[in-house]
């Protein structure tokens, strides 16, 4: 599971606010948080910048961790 939801909550942002900040639909944020959509590198970077963190922190997972749906 990625850390987008955790960092969004830490930044006190709603899904709508985060979606507006990076220019995507709210559902896209929801699907990313639930590991149901694989965002492009460009969108991952936008998320990392908006949540004031880095790609590794948000998306890194070990080899044996579960794959996306």
């Amino acid at each position, binding site marked *: 599971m990625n850390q987008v939801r955790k960092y969004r909550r830490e930044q006190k942002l709603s899904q709508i606010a985060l979606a507006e900040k990076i220019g*995507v639909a*709210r559902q*896209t944020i929801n699907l990313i948080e639930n590991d149901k959509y694989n*965002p492009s590198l460009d969108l991952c970077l936008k998320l990392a910048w908006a949540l004031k963190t880095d790609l590794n922190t948000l998306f890194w997972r070990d080899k044996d961790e579960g794959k996306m749906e």
Partner: protein
Amino acid sequence: MKVKWSDRIIKWFFGIPGIVDERIKVEIGRASIKALIGIFIFELVFNDIIITIAMSGRITDFESFFYITTLIQILAILSIIAMFTIIVLRHRGVISEEVSSEGKNQAINRIRNKWLRLAPIGFIIFWLLNTSLNIENQNFFKVMFSLKEIVGALIFSIIFFPMMYFYEKGNIHVIKDDNND
């Protein structure tokens, strides 16, 4: 943020209420490829059948045969597009309009006003189109102001515009601000 022309066309064509982001383009791409394969298979099979029937010598009235096959083709293609794009995209939440519980009534009113504004324009367009199709060397205005044409356009408007209003109303999805479902 500047919206691209291609995004505007996608938004208009598929009736997407919000932002056209990369995920929506991916969903549309997948649905469109399925629709394209569906249309290709249909055309292949349908045209084979039509050619076989036409060459069998059983058809005597080729004009009626042409109209019937064209009508079947149009209806089938529209159904395939509806099935593979509109229904799939609706199911995937691409064409649903998300509003807060406070904004629901406002959204419904906006949709109602939109279709109320479009209804008279649609009525006139249908009336003119139907008249031009039924003119048959008669006076245009005589045909246009005949009871049959007016009633036809009225029936179309009474069915089509409320149907579109209820369709768009059905696409409204109420969400909480931090919806995690």
